[in-house]
C-alpha cells in the first residue's frame, strides 16, 4: 500500500485505467454468448438434449410431439427467445420449464449449439 501510494499520480491513473479495462472485459465476457459451460458440463448438456429433450423432439432433433430443433428450424428465431423457452417452458403445451437444472448461460449455449447443428451425444 505504502509503495503504491508513493507512486506518481500518472502511474496511479494508469493502474486505475487498467483496472477499469480489466473489469469491463470481465463484465463483457460474463454477458457474452461466447462464455461457455465447462467441457464436462457441456457433455452433460448435450446428453440431456439428445436423450431427454429427444423424448419429445426426437433423438436427431427432427421433431416428435414437440417441434423440430434443427438449424433450419431455428435460424429465423431469436436466440434470447429460444433460451427463454428452454428456461420457462411454454404454458399450455407439454414443454416444461428447465430452469430447475439449466442456467441462463447454459440455455444460451444450448441454443447456439442447436443453431450450429451436428449435435452428437458420444
Amino acid at each position: 500500500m505504502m509503495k503504491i501510494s508513493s507512486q506518481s499520480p500518472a502511474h496511479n491513473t494508469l493502474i486505475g485505467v487498467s483496472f477499469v479495462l480489466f473489469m469491463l472485459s470481465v463484465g463483457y465476457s460474463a454477458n457474452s454468448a461466447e462464455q461457455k459451460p465447462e467441457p464436462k458440463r457441456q457433455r452433460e448438456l448435450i446428453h440431456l438434449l439428445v436423450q431427454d429433450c429427444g423424448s419429445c423432439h426426437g433423438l436427431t432433433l427432427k421433431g416428435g410431439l414437440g417441434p423440430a430443433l434443427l438449424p433450419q428450424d431455428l435460424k429465423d428465431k431469436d436466440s434470447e427467445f429460444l433460451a427463454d423457452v428452454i428456461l420457462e417452458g411454454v404454458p399450455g403445451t407439454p414443454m416444461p420449464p428447465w430452469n430447475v437444472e439449466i442456467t441462463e448461460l447454459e440455455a444460451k449455449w444450448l441454443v447456439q449449439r442447436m443453431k450450429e447443428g451436428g449435435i452428437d451425444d458420444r
Partner: protein
Amino acid sequence: MIVKYIIRIFIFTTTLIASSASFADMRGSGDLGIIIERASGSIQIIETTNRTKLFNIDGLGDLSHASVVFSRDQRYGFVFGRDGGLTKVDVLAGKIVKRVVQGGNAIGGAISQDGKLVAVSNYEPGGVRVFDSQTLEMVADIPAKYGNGLLSKTVGLVDAPGNKFIFSLYDAGETWIADFSASNTPKITKFKDIGDQPYDGLITPDARYYVAGLFGEDGLAMLDLWHPEKGVKRILDGYGRGEEPLPVYKMPHLEGWAAAGGNLFLPAIGRHEVLVVSASNWKEVARIPVHGQPVFAMARPDGRQIWVNFAHPKNDVLQVIDVDSMSIIKTFKPGRAILHMEFTPRGEQIWVSVRDRNVVEVYDTETLKKITELPANTPSGIFLTARASRMGL
C-alpha cells in the same frame, strides 16, 4: 450298378444328416424378445429362458421412442422407429426381412386381430398408414384431417376386436375407429371433442374400453367399444382437484396401464401418484403416493404387483406396489434413466432397461432380487414375443 447304389446311399445319408442338424437347430420363439438400442439404431434378440443374447441387428434408423408388435406366429417383429421406418425382423433367423420408410416422423403402431395388417401412427404426415404384414405394401392411408384441411399428429394407436384400429388426434381432440373388417378401405367413425390434447391411449386387457389420456385437462376420455353409440365419456374428471400440475419432464405412457384386482392402475400426469380406478364403474378407488411422476405402471401378469418407473430427473428409481395392500413394498435404485420394463409371459421375471448404465437388468419378481444383467447400448424398449397374443399390444 453297385456304384450307383453306393452314391444313392451316400446322398440319402448326407441329406439325413443335414436335415437332422436343422432339426437340432429348430426352436420355438415363445421365449424370445427384442431390446431396442435407441441411440445406435440397433436391436438385440434375446431369450428369457437362459437369459442370453442371440443376435445383434443394426440399420434400423432413429429408434428413439421405438416400439414393436409381433406376428401371430411370434416369428416376426415389426419395429416402429421415430424416423418413420417400419422394419420387419425375423427373430428366429436374427435378420431384417424388409424395411420401408413410410412416413417422416412416427410414433408406434399396431397389428390387426387377424394378423394381416400393420398400422403405423404418424406425427408427420399426421395420420395412420396401414400395411400388408407379409409384404409391407401400403394398403390404406388415413390422413388425420381436421379443421380447415390441417393434419393432426396421431397418438394412442391400438388394435381392437373386429379388425379395427383405434387412435386419437393430438391436435384436434378426437378419437377415430378405422374398421377393416369388410375390406382394406376402412370404415371410419369419428368421435369429436373428446378433450384437450390427447397424448396417448390404451385399450383395456379385455379389449372393451379405449381410454385416451389428456394432457390439456384433468381427466381421461373413455370409449366403450361394446356401445360406441354412447360416445366418449369423461372419466376421473378433475383428478388433480384443481391443483396446478407439476411440469412434466417425460410424458407418461399408457400402454402399460395395468389392470389388476378389478382395478386399473395408471400414472397421474404431473403428479407423484399412481391413480387406482375401478374398472367396473370408472370411479377413483385410491391414489398411491410414489417417488416421482410415473411413466409406466405395469402389472405383473397375475395382477399381484405393479412396477413403476419415473420421469426425468427422478428416473433412477424403480418401485414395486403390492396390489393387495396398495402400498410400496420395494424401492430399487438401478441407475439413471430406467426407460422400460417387461414381464416374462407368466411374470416370474421382469426385464428392466437402464439406459445410462448401458445394461438391461433382470429381476425375480417373487424374491425381488436381481438375477442378472446383460450389456446393451442405451437400451430403451423391451418387447417379448408373448405380446403377439394380447389385444392392444
